[in-house]
């Protein structure tokens, strides 16, 4: 758990850190789409090269980065393994009952592996270089057009930012409750499935009670600080589109074009 990087923020001031959150969000989304267009080694190579440049620009050391996503790789290998065993077509290399391995499924499996890896890498870079608050703000900016159809964009963004702000608080609380119940003799994470489900009750009840308490107190404090509704507020932070964003988009668009040109 301690080396796990996915979803965490690493403070810094790199090129990637300085980009506006809305363009980082959109670029990640765009990158994921392009991944699905790549279908041969060269086109994947272009994307891999691009992601390596992005990681370098984010100021995070590559070895640290790879170590951080390692826990997820097992998950991918497991999924890819199933994919290989259950797909058909091509020359059969090995067969046992319903399971078979063919040359095509191997190649496909390899590509799926690379896809997963690339997606995890781009989203890890996104969260490593963007504060949760900035992500919430980015979502708000991107969804702004929906305001015309009375979609509560601002409320959604405020909810998201408060939710993200309380993640560490609740994680801390969970840790304390886990410890308190452990010292009362609860064995978390061992025994049969029913045993484990039972063991979750002494964790979940206090966690929810605590969360509800936080929510009540927080809403009082917000009211006392003059909060009425989320649509009638000014904004302290604005993330402006910068030259860095434009340049990044040009690079990503060119890479996307290249993938389309190089694919079979």
């Amino acid at each position: 758990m301690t080396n796990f990087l996915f979803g965490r923020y690493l403070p810094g001031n790199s090129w990637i850190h300085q980009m506006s959150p809305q363009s980082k969000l959109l670029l990640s989304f765009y990158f994921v789409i392009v991944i699905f267009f790549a279908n041969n080694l060269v086109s994947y190579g272009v994307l891999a090269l691009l992601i390596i440049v992005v990681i370098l620009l984010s100021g995070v050391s590559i070895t640290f980065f790879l170590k951080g996503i390692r826990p997820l790789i097992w998950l991918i290998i497991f999924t890819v393994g199933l994919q290989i065993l259950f797909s058909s077509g091509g020359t059969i290399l090995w067969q046992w009952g319903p399971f078979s391995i063919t040359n095509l499924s191997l190649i496909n499996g390899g590509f799926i592996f690379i896809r997963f890896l690339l997606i995890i890498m781009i989203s890890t870079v996104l969260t490593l270089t963007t504060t949760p608050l900035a992500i919430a703000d980015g979502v708000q900016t991107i969804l702004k057009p929906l305001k015309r159809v009375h979609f509560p964009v601002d409320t959604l963004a405020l909810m998201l930012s408060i939710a993200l702000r309380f993640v560490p608080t609740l994680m801390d609380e969970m840790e304390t409750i886990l410890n308190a119940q452990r010292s009362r003799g609860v064995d978390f994470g061992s025994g049969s499935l029913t045993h484990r489900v039972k063991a979750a009750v002494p964790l979940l009840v206090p966690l929810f009670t605590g969360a509800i308490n936080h929510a009540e107190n927080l809403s009082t404090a917000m009211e006392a600080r003059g909060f009425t509704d989320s649509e009638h507020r000014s904004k302290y932070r604005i993330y402006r589109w910068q030259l860095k964003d434009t340049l990044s988009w040009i690079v990503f668009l060119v890479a996307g074009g290249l993938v389309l040109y190089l694919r079979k």
Partner: protein
Amino acid sequence: MDKAISFNQVTHTYQANTPYAQNALDNISLEIPTNSFTAIIGHTGSGKSTLVQHINALLKPTQGSVTVYNRSITPTTTNKNLKELRRHVGMVFQFPEKQLFEETVIKDIMFGPKNYGMVDAEAEQAAIEAMKLVGLDKSLSEKSPFDLSGGQMRRVAIAGVLAMKPEVLILDEPTAGLDPRGHKEIMDLASYLHDHDHITIILVTHQMDDVVNYASEVVVMDKGKIVQTGTPAEVFADPKWVYRMQLNLPTSAEFAQQLIDAGVPIGQLPLTIDQLADRITELARKGENPDD
């Protein structure tokens, strides 16, 4: 004296090998005697909570070993062996009322004892005794713990730990947020358990008055290291050092210091109100009979 707990060159690093790595305990060696009342003090973030969580094996040392009643915990101890150790060490966390979850008070108090193998009847007996100890009325036993006042909830949580009949009781700032009456009741309970039931008490606190009024030994921590151990008198002997550790003096010592600054020859700093009153009495008698 017998040692209940010993730390042997213990280092604990949070999130080792990452940019987030933090040394929370730095090469700690410590012995806590059986049936002592030990206070652990140090400013916020000095490593007190990390230290006591090792005694309950909630944390394992990154280096070194911890021994609790002849059971040792090392970096390689497996989780399976920890439960047996934990039944001997009760731990009351800060704001322990947050751990309540059962439908009724009595069920919540019985939860720990049952986990450690007591049968229902035994556990219920232990729970009833624990309720009496912490001063909860029997009529509350079938109520939901969430319908009680804050102070009562805290006592339910403490009863839940006491019902497991631990030999060592760790109290991590047990009185935080309580009013003066609640504070005194909890501290008197700790004192009773120590004197009457011979439980080894380990108290983590910021309240220096509690240290001098209740503890027999004091451990001072700073930046993950133990910087001083001794009796309250030894630890508070040098006010300048105490302030440098970002700690306070007990109120009586602080007031005595003000008297000294005003020219009253108090001499060695008294720690409790009675010591200070005795000292003033002595000085006043001398004033009446200057020939003494």
